[in-house]
């Protein structure tokens, strides 16, 4: 009884409070204040130094320089630009060039990557080995080296316009770039894109209707063929009604160069080639891993419930493989976008070359320009990863 009482009194006693320096809460607070203080001190140090250095070099900080005339020309512009335009215009031009090369690179890299990735898994020994050799060779060679190879060793040593390499007499490749026919839109052309938009909206509605009908009644509808018909049929009909308001402007050799058509400068061609060939190897490996990540039991189970090989692939394997593929694919798209900055090495007028290069040299506004450049890349990265995260969420496994 006495022992029990004693025990109770021991229990009733509040546990000894740890000293302040051993209390996890205060420790956490201490370390955080320390880190915050360190960051603030470092920031003040850097800002002070920068301001002092700028003041000594006589550079006025601020974004006023964006309104001044740039005074240099750019070899490739998608929007109107001349030497009289402002630095802000050069910024826009170079951002658009960066985005253009990234989008086209992503497009080709994805297609090529999926083809190679599937070829790598082919049951045909020769095809699988060829794909393997392609992957192992190109992905172990630095991108910059490949870029140099395509630009300096292939495109720059091509013959001049008079001895162009011609494909079907419509595409011409020479040391001035790649020349292709250019679409000329005549009046009434607007009907075709409108028809295309209507077709896409109609397809979405048909797909929803077909899915609902299948869930309700079990009857299937050939959504794919219907969609195919509408997608191509409607614009074709619109073109027929408006009398084909589209013609092609072919490049023609005049004097020492080609006139007309669409001109792609060799820097652009080299950059797209290198970026897509290099990134395709990584995408191919991702695709292979995604497909191999689906257990064979899934295919067997699908066959067992009576699905044919086509629907098995479309309805069972690919949706699951995509779930594995998308996250690493996102980072490859991000890599490609960031790698497009290698353009500076071969003088393709992208953000780094034109804005962080020429504009920086002329104005000396290092902090503002490098800051804006980094901000553009950060924004692009966030946009791409945001979009892919949204898509990933849509494809993700819905769990309880």
């Amino acid at each position, binding site marked *: 009884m006495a022992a029990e009482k004693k025990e109770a009194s021991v229990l009733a006693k509040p546990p000894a409070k740890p000293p302040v320096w051993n209390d996890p809460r205060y420790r956490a607070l201490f370390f955080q204040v320390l880190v915050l203080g360190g960051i603030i001190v470092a920031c003040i140090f850097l800002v002070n130094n920068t301001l002092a250095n*700028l003041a000594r070099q006589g550079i006025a900080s601020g974004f006023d320089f964006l309104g001044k005339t740039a005074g240099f020309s750019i070899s490739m512009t998608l929007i109107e630009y001349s030497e009289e335009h402002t630095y802000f215009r050069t910024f826009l031009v170079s951002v658009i060039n960066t985005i253009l090369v990234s989008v086209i690179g992503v497009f080709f890299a994805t297609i090529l990557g999926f083809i190679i990735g599937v070829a790598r898994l082919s049951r045909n020994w020769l095809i699988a080995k060829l794909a393997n050799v392609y992957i192992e060779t190109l992905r172990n*060679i630095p991108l910059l080296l490949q870029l140099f190879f395509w630009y300096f060793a292939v495109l720059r040593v091509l013959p001049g316009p008079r001895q162009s390499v011609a494909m079907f007499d419509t595409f011409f490749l020479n040391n001035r770039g790649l020349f292709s026919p250019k679409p000329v839109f005549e009046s009434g052309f607007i009907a075709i894109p409108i028809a295309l938009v209507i077709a896409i909206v109609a397809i979405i509605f048909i797909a929803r209707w077909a899915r609902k009908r299948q869930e309700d009644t079990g009857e299937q509808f050939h959504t794919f063929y219907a969609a195919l018909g509408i997608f191509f049929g409607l614009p074709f009909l619109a073109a027929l009604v408006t009398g084909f308001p589209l013609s092609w402007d072919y490049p023609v050799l005049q004097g020492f160069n080609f006139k007309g058509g669409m001109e792609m400068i060799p820097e652009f061609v080299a950059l797209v080639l290198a970026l897509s060939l290099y990134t395709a190897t990584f995408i191919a490996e991702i695709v292979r891993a995604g497909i191999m990540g689906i257990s064979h039991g899934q295919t067997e189970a699908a066959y067992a419930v009576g699905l044919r090989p086509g629907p098995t692939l479309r309805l069972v394997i690919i949706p699951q493989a995509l779930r594995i593929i998308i996250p690493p694919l996102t980072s490859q798209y991000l890599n490609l976008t960031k790698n497009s900055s290698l353009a500076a090495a071969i003088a393709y007028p992208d953000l780094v070359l034109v804005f962080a290069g020429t504009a920086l040299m002329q104005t000396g506004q290092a902090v503002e320009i490098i800051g804006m450049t980094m901000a553009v890349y950060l924004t692009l990265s966030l946009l791409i990863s945001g979009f892919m995260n949204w898509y990933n969420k849509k494809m993700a496994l819905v769990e309880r």
Partner: protein
Amino acid sequence: MTEQTRHYEPGKHPDLPPPLTEVGVIGWLRTNLFSSWSNTILTLVGLYITYLLVPPVIKWVFIDADWVGTTREDCSREGACWVFIKVWFKQLMFGRYPLEELWRIYTAGALLVAAMIPLFIPQFRWKHWLALFLLIIYPIIATYLFSGFSADAVAAWPYRLMQYSALALGILALLPLLGVWRERSAIVAIVLLVLVPLWGLSASSTWTAGLLYGAPTWAAVIGVILAIGAPLVLVAGLMFSQWRNVIAENYWKFAITAAVVAFIGFMFPLWAWPDTAGSSPPWSIPLTAAALALAAVCPWGYDRPSGQPAWLARLLLPAYVVIAYLVLTGPPDFLNFGGLDWTANAKPLFAAIKDGPLPEVETPLWGGLFLTLVIALVGIVASLPIGIVLALGRRSNMPIIRAACVGFIEFWRGVPLITVLFMSSVMFPLFMPEGMTFDKLLRALIGVMLFSAAYMAEVVRGGLQAIPKGQFEAAGALGLSYPKVMSFVIMPQALKIVIPGIVNTFIGLFKDTTLVLIIGLFDFLGMAQLAATNPDWLGFSVEGYVFTAFGFWCFCFSMSRYSQYLERKLHTGH
């Protein structure tokens, strides 16, 4: 009687060979290349592609190639001109590094290889020590071998050594106060035993320089012996248990005696400080010496039976920290009478070394594959610890630390390496105080380091996330502190999981080092580019690219194969 009509008992028929179409070469061809119509077409397409690619490449690389000669006239221009590579080989490997100094790179490389080999031998038992050598001592050796001594560095080294050993002493002396290593003051003492003489040596060299100005030799010798000897004897006393008890009982007497003796010793050469030296003697040196002597004997104040720090130690340590700070930042004017230039004293003494065995090779002369390897290895070695710290910070419960780490990681991962290198070459000088300049190579290295650390942090985070929560909880339940939980339980498992990811980051970093040529450093690819634009050798860029591509390919491919081997080896299965 023919074969076909012979009759066998059921089950007695001899085994027939399998049909020719199913085994051997034909069978293999049928199953792998011609199993169906579509497959046959694919095979033919593949064969055509092979035919288009392989024979011309082999013809260009081997059959039509020119291998011998020394000038471009020796090349027939039908195949590859390997003469070009032969002529430029040294530059491709080492850039513009002076040819007569190449032995230094060879030595450092041989040392690295020799030290690395045992790491790959599974039976080797002292890997930890070897790794420590490679990570701490080897970089110092390699740096001095590669860059040699600049005159300024030579003059400054006694002062630098004094700074670093004072800092190390301070940290060591503080450890027991923070509760770390309280029970291991003997180990601390052993380290002090190394550091104190090192410090004394560097300080004494400053007075030896004073000797040049006329101080008597015997004064300097006695001074150095006393200064180094006093704390040394006291620290050595710790090693013997019978002395230890005697000293511990009269702790403060011994400590103060050591400090006074050191002070007197360090004062000795100064009394003869000549007027011709142009400045007053550095009084701060003996003061610091006394403080250091006290600090050196401090840790043993904790070994008293109560386990509490001695009162003297409590007083001495804050004082020591203040003095160590003064030593580190250089003495302020009120201590450094007459504004003595500390490094100036040592200059004449070490002027001789300037032209000694290792003349300086400035970093703009570094180049080629050598520079590529330096950048890649420094980036790899430095990014892993920074990455681990960042990953732990990102998983921390403390919101400010987490936010800081997330911000850091996402910033570096969101921008391309080129802009990082641009920033390091254009903006870094702006960030630093006036007059403080960094080598271009060092700036690039810092950029590469921070960039790859962010990627490494994400890889390590992946490993941390794969460790089940039970591991953290079980380790915590055993009473392990956070550093112990991490270093003994979590990290060994997490790092094992992410080894393939780490190697992949290394491969990426290795390839990315080529970008430094954009800010004007001539790495492997940069030298190939430079060689191809040489007026005497125009038109051989393809050979240069093929050679560099082959070099990079060999490194990257072997690294990826090694990572696959590790993945298989470490896959213990769960």
